[in-house]
C-alpha cells in the first residue's frame, strides 16, 4: 500500500494539514502536496478508468506527462473536468471526483468493454463508418456519443475572470530546472532583459530529487542561491506557476500562468495568458521518462521510476513496501537506492541489459539489492493493484522463469527530451541511437525574420543527461542568446559538478524482445486512449505507414496528454512493424499548447459586458431607459422600436409609423457615417468614388450618391453635402463608416497619391437626429432658432444650413429617408442628449414619439428606397435596382464603370428591382422567399426567377408590401408570380412599381 513516510518530503509542511474531498470521502494531506501525492499518501492507488476499456488506472507519473489521473475538479461555478492530479496543488476544501465510470470507481459496468477488446481494435471508430451502412447512424453513433469524453461537462457559468498580459523581453527562458536557472543567470548577467517561466510552483526541477552537488553544494542549496541571485538582478523576471505554452513565428511565445488555482476565489484573475515578444527563446524543458512496454503495464502500481522517487523525495510518500524496478538504463537505480534508503524493499531490479557495471548499479549492489541482468518482465499480475511480476529472459518470448510478489513496479525505458517548444515553429530533430532519443538539431533551428534561429535549447532538453554537460550547455545557451540579442555576453563560469559515470542505455521497445500475440494485447502504449502494441501492429498490417496516419487511426498520442509517454514507444513499434529505422518513421507534429490550457485563458478578459465591443450613440442611455428594443447594427446597438408598457413590438412599430406620417417623429441617426473630404482635388476624388457627379454640387446643397467596388457592385450609399468650395461631408451607412473611410484612404494612398485630398472620419463628432413628419418644421421652430431659417423657401429640399437650434450649434440637412418633411440635424455629440430632450419637449404638443429602425425600414420601403444589405448583397449593381439615373453618363470614369459594361452586367436577364403586392393584401411574403416559374432545371430543382429583398406590413397602406429582384421584372408589371413557402403554400403576388406611397414626392417637398 502507498502511505506517508515518517520523514522526508522537501515540499510538504507537516505542521499544516489540508483537508479535501475525494469521491465524497474526506481525506487529509499537507500543504505542499499535489492532489496526486495526497491521494497516494491516503493509499488511493485507483484513481480512474481508461477511456475505451474502462480499465482500472492509477497514478503513473508525478508531472504534466501523467496520462491517467485526470479528475472532475471543484463544483458548481468552479467545476472543471480532466484536471491532472499531478499538476494540481492541494488546497483546503478541494473536491475531486474520478471520471469515466458507472456506477462507481470501484465497480464499473463499462469494464465489460475490456472483455470485448477483440471487437474494439485499432480503427474501430472509423470501421463503424464503413459497414454495415445503416449501422453508423442507428447503432454506433448513439453508443459512441454516449461513451465519448472522460470528464463531465460543466453546467454553470465560470465564476472566474481571466486575462492577457503583453510582455516584451530580450530573452525568454522556458523551464526553471538547473539548466533554465543557469541559462537565465548567464543571459541575465549580460544586461539583457530575461524572463524565466517555470510551470510548477518551485524552481530546480528534478535535479533536486536526483541529488548530487553543484559548486560543492547540494543541488537544492545551489538552486536556492541561484534563485536568490536572479532575484537580485533587476533585468530578470522569474515567473513560477507559468508554463511556456507555445512558440510562434517572429519571436512570439505564450505563457500560461495559473495565478490562483491553488487558492481559488482569492479575487485575482484565475489564469493569465502571457503574450511575449522576444528576440531569443531558450527552451530548458528537461526530459520525460518513457514507460516500458510489457504486458499489464497499465495496472495501478506500475509507475515511472523517476516519479516513484519524486513522490518519496518531494512529498514523503512511499508508493509501496516492495518495489520491483524494470529498466534498460542506469538512472532507474537512483530509484532503487532511494527506496532501499527509505527502509523499503527492492526485491529485484529487472535490467534488460546483459552487463550492468555503472557506478549507480554498483552502489545498489553494495546495498544488497539483487539485480537480474538480461531479464524482462513477462507480465504484471493484479487487477486494481499490482500483486506480482512474472520474470522472463529479455531475449526470449515470454517463458516465465520466476514470479515475484511486489506492490509497485517502477519502470524506466530511458528519457525523451521535451522537444515540443523547440519544434512548434519548425525546429528539427535528430535520432541519437546511442542514447535512444530524439534530440534537437542545433543546425536546423526554427528561423526568424532575420534568417537566424530564434530558439535555442539548453540542458536535458538538448539531450544531455549528465549534470555537468547539462550546466555547460545551459551556460553556453544563455550567453549565446544574450549575444544574439545584441548584448556582450557575460563571463559567467560553468558550475562545477562531480557526476557519476553511467553505462549506455539499451533500446528496449518491448519486454521481452519478442512478445506473443497474447502479450501484445495486454501491453499498453497509450494509457489514456487504450492503445496497445497489438493495435499499432494491426495498423501497420492494414497499410498505415505514416506515423501521422497511424496516430489518427489508432488514437495513439491523441487527447489531453498528446502522447507525452506514448509517442516514442509507439513509433518504435511502428518502425519495427514496418522493418524501418526509427528516424525514417519520424515523430508526429508538435503543436501548441505544450499542455492543455483553459479556454478562459484563451478568451482573456472578453466575457460578460466586455465580450465584444459595443458602440453606443450619444442617445444610447436614454433609449435604454425608455423602452428601446435593441438590435445590433454593425458594432452599434440601435432601437428596433420603442415599446410602451404592455405594447407588443409589432404594435409599437405601427404606432411609430402612424405618428410620424400623421404628425412628427424623432429618429436617432447618429450612427450614420460622416466623412469629411477636403482639398483642391476633393470634387474630382468624389467623382471617382460615386457613380454620379459630385463635383457640380453647389455649396450648401446635398446629393444622394452610390458607391461601387471596382467590380461594379453596389457597396454603399448616402447623401453628400458640399460645405465649402473644397470641403464635402459624405454620409455612409451605419455599418459602413470605417470601411468606406478605409476605402477612401486606400485609393488616396495607393493610386491617387498625388491628388490633394485629406479625409477625416467625424462620424462620432456629431449626434445626428432626424425630426420627421408634417409637423417637423413647427417643432424645430419651437425649439428656438438662432441664425437659421428652416422655412421651405430658405431651406428647400436637399439643402442644408447652419446656425443654432435650442441654443446648440447645429447643421440642419433637409433630406428625407421616409418621404416626409424631414430635417436631419447634426449637433456636437456631447450635446446630443440635450438636443434630443429639447426636441421631445418642443414636440410634446404634437405627440412627438421617437421611432426605431423598423419604422425607418417600413417607411423607406413604402417609398421604394433601397437599403444597402437588403436590396444589395455584394452581387447587385445599381442598374439592377433601377438606379441608372444616379449613374453619370458624362464622367470619363468612376470606380465600377468599366465592370458595369461587361457582358454579364448588361445581360437583360439579370434580376431587377420591382415592387411586389400579394394578391391577398393580408399576407406578408416571407423574407428571402424565391419566386418560381413552374419549370424544373436539369438538376431537378425548381427554376427560380426572383427573390424577395424587403417585405413588410405597411400600416400606412394597410396592406403587405415588398420589394424583390425578378427576372425581366420591370417589363412584367401587373404579372402574377408565385412564391412557394417552406410550409408548402404558394403566395400569388403581383409585380408593381416599387414606389408604393406618394409617388410624386409631394410630402417631403413642402
Amino acid at each position, binding site marked *: 500500500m502507498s502511505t506517508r513516510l515518517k520523514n522526508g518530503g522537501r515540499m510538504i509542511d507537516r505542521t499544516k494539514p489540508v483537508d479535501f474531498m475525494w469521491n465524497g470521502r474526506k481525506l487529509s494531506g499537507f500543504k505542499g502536496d499535489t492532489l496526486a501525492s495526497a491521494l497516494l499518501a491516503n493509499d488511493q492507488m485507483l484513481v480512474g478508468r481508461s477511456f475505451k476499456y474502462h480499465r482500472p488506472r492509477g497514478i503513473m507519473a508525478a508531472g504534466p506527462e501523467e496520462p491517467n489521473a485526470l479528475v472532475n475538479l471543484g463544483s458548481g461555478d468552479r467545476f472543471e473536468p480532466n484536471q491532472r492530479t499531478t499538476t494540481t496543488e492541494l488546497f483546503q476544501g478541494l473536491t475531486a471526483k474520478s471520471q469515466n465510470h458507472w456506477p462507481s470507481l470501484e465497480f464499473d459496468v463499462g469494464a465489460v468493454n475490456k472483455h470485448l477488446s477483440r471487437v474494439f481494435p485499432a480503427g474501430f471508430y472509423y470501421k463503424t463508418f464503413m459497414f454495415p451502412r445503416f449501422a453508423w447512424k442507428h447503432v454506433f453513433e448513439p453508443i459512441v456519443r454516449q461513451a465519448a469524453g472522460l470528464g463531465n461537462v460543466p453546467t454553470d457559468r465560470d465564476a472566474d*475572470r481571466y*486575462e492577457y498580459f*503583453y510582455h516584451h523581453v530580450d530573452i525568454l527562458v522556458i523551464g526553471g530546472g538547473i539548466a533554465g536557472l543557469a541559462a537565465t543567470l548567464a543571459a541575465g548577467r549580460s544586461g539583457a532583459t530575461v524572463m524565466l517561466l517555470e510551470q510548477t510552483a518551485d524552481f530546480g526541477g528534478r535535479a533536486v530529487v536526483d541529488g548530487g552537488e553543484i559548486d560543492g553544494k547540494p543541488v537544492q542549496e545551489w538552486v536556492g542561491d541561484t534563485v536568490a541571485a536572479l532575484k537580485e538582478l533587476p533585468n530578470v523576471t522569474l515567473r513560477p506557476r507559468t508554463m511556456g505554452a507555445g512558440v510562434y513565428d517572429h519571436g512570439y511565445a505564450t505563457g500560461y500562468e495559473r495565478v490562483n488555482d491553488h487558492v481559488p476565489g482569492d*479575487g485575482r484573475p484565475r489564469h493569465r495568458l502571457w503574450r511575449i515578444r522576444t528576440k531569443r527563446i531558450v527552451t530548458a524543458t528537461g526530459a520525460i521518462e518513457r514507460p516500458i512496454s510489457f504486458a499489464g503495464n497499465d495496472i495501478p502500481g506500475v509507475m515511472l521510476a523517476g516519479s516513484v522517487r519524486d513522490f518519496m523525495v518531494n512529498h514523503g510518500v512511499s508508493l509501496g513496501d516492495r518495489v520491483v524496478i524494470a529498466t534498460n538504463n542506469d538512472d532507474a537505480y537512483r530509484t532503487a537506492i532511494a527506496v532501499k534508503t527509505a527502509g523499503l524493499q527492492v526485491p529485484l531490479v529487472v535490467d534488460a541489459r546483459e552487463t550492468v557495471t555503472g557506478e549507480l548499479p554498483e552502489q545498489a549492489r553494495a546495498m544488497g539489492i539483487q539485480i537480474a541482468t538480461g531479464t524482462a518482465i513477462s507480465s504484471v499480475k493484479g487487477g486494481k493493484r499490482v500483486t506480482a511480476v512474472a520474470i522472463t529472459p529479455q531475449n526470449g518470448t515470454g517463458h516465465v522463469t520466476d514470479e515475484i510478489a511486489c506492490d509497485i513496479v517502477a519502470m524506466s525505458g530511458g528519457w525523451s527530451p521535451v522537444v515540443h517548444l523547440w519544434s512548434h515553429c519548425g525546429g528539427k530533430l535528430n535520432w541519437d541511437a546511442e542514447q535512444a532519443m530524439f534530440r534537437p538539431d542545433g543546425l536546423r533551428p526554427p528561423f526568424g525574420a532575420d534568417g537566424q534561429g530564434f530558439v535555442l535549447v539548453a540542458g536535458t532538453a538538448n539531450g544531455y543527461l549528465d549534470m555537468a554537460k547539462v550546466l555547460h550547455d545551459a551556460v553556453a545557451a544563455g550567453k549565446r542568446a544574450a549575444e544574439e540579442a545584441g548584448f556582450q555576453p557575460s563571463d559567467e563560469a560553468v558550475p562545477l559538478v562531480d557526476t557519476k559515470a553511467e553505462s549506455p542505455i539499451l533500446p528496449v521497445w518491448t519486454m521481452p524482445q519478442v512478445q506473443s500475440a497474447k502479450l501484445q494485447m495486454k501491453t499498453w502504449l497509450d494509457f489514456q486512449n487504450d492503445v496497445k502494441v497489438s493495435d499499432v501492429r494491426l495498423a501497420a498490417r492494414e497499410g498505415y505507414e505514416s506515423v501521422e496516419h497511424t496516430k489518427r487511426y489508432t488514437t495513439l498520442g491523441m487527447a489531453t496528454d498528446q502522447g507525452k509517454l506514448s509517442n516514442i514507444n509507439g513509433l518504435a513499434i511502428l518502425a519495427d512493424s514496418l522493418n524501418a529505422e526509427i528516424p525514417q518513421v519520424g515523430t508526429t507534429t508538435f503543436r501548441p499548447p505544450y499542455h492543455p490550457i483553459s479556454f478562459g485563458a484563451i478568451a482573456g*478578459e472578453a466575457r460578460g459586458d466586455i465580450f*465584444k*465591443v459595443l458602440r453606443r450613440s450619444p442617445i444610447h442611455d436614454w433609449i435604454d431607459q425608455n423602452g428601446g428594443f435593441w438590435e445590433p447594427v454593425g458594432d452599434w446597438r440601435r432601437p428596433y422600436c420603442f415599446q410602451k408598457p404592455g405594447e407588443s413590438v409589432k404594435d409599437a412599430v405601427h404606432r411609430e409609423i402612424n405618428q410620424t406620417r400623421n404628425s412628427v417623429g424623432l429618429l436617432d441617426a447618429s450612427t450614420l457615417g460622416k466623412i469629411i473630404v477636403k482639398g483642391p482635388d476633393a470634387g474630382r476624388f468624389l467623382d471617382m468614388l460615386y457613380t454620379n457627379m459630385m463635383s457640380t454640387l453647389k455649396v450648401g446643397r446635398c446629393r444622394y450618391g452610390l458607391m461601387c467596388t471596382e467590380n461594379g457592385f453596389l457597396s454603399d450609399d448616402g447623401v453628400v453635402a458640399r460645405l465649402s468650395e473644397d470641403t464635402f461631408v459624405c454620409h455612409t451607412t451605419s455599418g459602413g463608416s470605417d470601411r468606406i473611410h478605409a476605402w477612401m484612404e486606400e485609393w488616396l494612398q495607393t493610386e491617387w497619391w498625388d491628388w490633394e485630398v485629406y479625409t477625416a472620419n467625424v462620424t*462620432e463628432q456629431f449626434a445626428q437626429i432626424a425630426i420627421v413628419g408634417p409637423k417637423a418644421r413647427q417643432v424645430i421652430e419651437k425649439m428656438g432658432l438662432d441664425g437659421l431659417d428652416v422655412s421651405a423657401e430658405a431651406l428647400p429640399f436637399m439643402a442644408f444650413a447652419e446656425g443654432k437650434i435650442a441654443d446648440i450649434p447645429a447643421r440642419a440637412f433637409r433630406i428625407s429617408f421616409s418621404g416626409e418633411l424631414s430635417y436631419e440635424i447634426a449637433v456636437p*455629440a456631447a*450635446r446630443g442628449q440635450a438636443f434630443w430632450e429639447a426636441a421631445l419637449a418642443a414636440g410634446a404638443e404634437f405627440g412627438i414619439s421617437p421611432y426605431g429602425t423598423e419604422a425607418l425600414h417600413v417607411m423607406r420601403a413604402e417609398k421604394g428606397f433601397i437599403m444597402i444589405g437588403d436590396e444589395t448583397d455584394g452581387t447587385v449593381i445599381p442598374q439592377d435596382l433601377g438606379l441608372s439615373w444616379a449613374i453619370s453618363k458624362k464622367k470619363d470614369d468612376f470606380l465600377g464603370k468599366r465592370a458595369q459594361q461587361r457582358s454579364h452586367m448588361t445581360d437583360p436577364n439579370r434580376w431587377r428591382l420591382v415592387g411586389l403586392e400579394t394578391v391577398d393584401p393580408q399576407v406578408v411574403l416571407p423574407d428571402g422567399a424565391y419566386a418560381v416559374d413552374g419549370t424544373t432545371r436539369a438538376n431537378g430543382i425548381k427554376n427560380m426567377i426572383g427573390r424577395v429583398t424587403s417585405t413588410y406590413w405597411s400600416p400606412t397602406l394597410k396592406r403587405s408590401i415588398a420589394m424583390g429582384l425578378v427576372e425581366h421584372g420591370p417589363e412584367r408589371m401587373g404579372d402574377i408570380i408565385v412564391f412557394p413557402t417552406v410550409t408548402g403554400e404558394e403566395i400569388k403576388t403581383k409585380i408593381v412599381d416599387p414606389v408604393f406611397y406618394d409617388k410624386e414626392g409631394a410630402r417631403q417637398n413642402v
Partner: protein
Amino acid sequence: MSNAISVKNGAEFNGAVRVSDAGLKGMITLRGDLSSTKLAAAVQETTGLAIPSRREIVFKGETGIAWMSPDELLIFCAYEQAEMQVAALTETLTGSHFLAVNVSDARAQFSLHGAGVREVIAKGSPANLSPAVLNPHEIRRTRLGQVAVAFWLSADDRLELVCFRSVGAFVYDWLCIAAAKDSLPEVY
C-alpha cells in the same frame, strides 16, 4: 455649454489604480505637410508649441500636440476653445492644402493614476509599456483589447488614454476590470 456631457460624465473607479473620466477635452485633427514652415508657423501661432517629432506628444498647460502620423497632428486645448482654434488655423493656412477639423466630441478621454498604470494597459495593448521603453512624451496609437486607442504617460504614475466616444463606456468598463484590486502581475 452647460448641457455638454462627456461619455461617462465624470465617473471614477478605485482599484489597483484609479480610473476616471477625464471630462470633455478640446481636440483638433490637423492634416497637412508637417515639414512646411507655413504649417509649423500656424501651429506655433495657435498653440504656442512646435510640431512634435515622430510619436512625440508635448503639453503646455491644457494645450498640447501629438504626432499621429507623417501627415497628421492631434491638437489638444480646452473644450470650449476648439472651434475657435479650428477657425484660427483655417484662416492662417488658407491657400495651402490642409484639413483642420474639430473632433472633441468624437473622443473620450480617461485618466489612470497609480503605480500600476502601465500594467493595466499592458493587459490589452501589445505595445511595450515597460519603463525602459515607454517614456512620458511618447504617444502610442495602438489597441486595448478589441478597440483602437491612443495613450501617453503624463507622469510616471499617470496615463491618459483617448478613444472614440462611441466605445467610451466599453473602454471604461474594460479599464475597471483590468484595474481590479490585486490583479496586476507586478513585473515592472
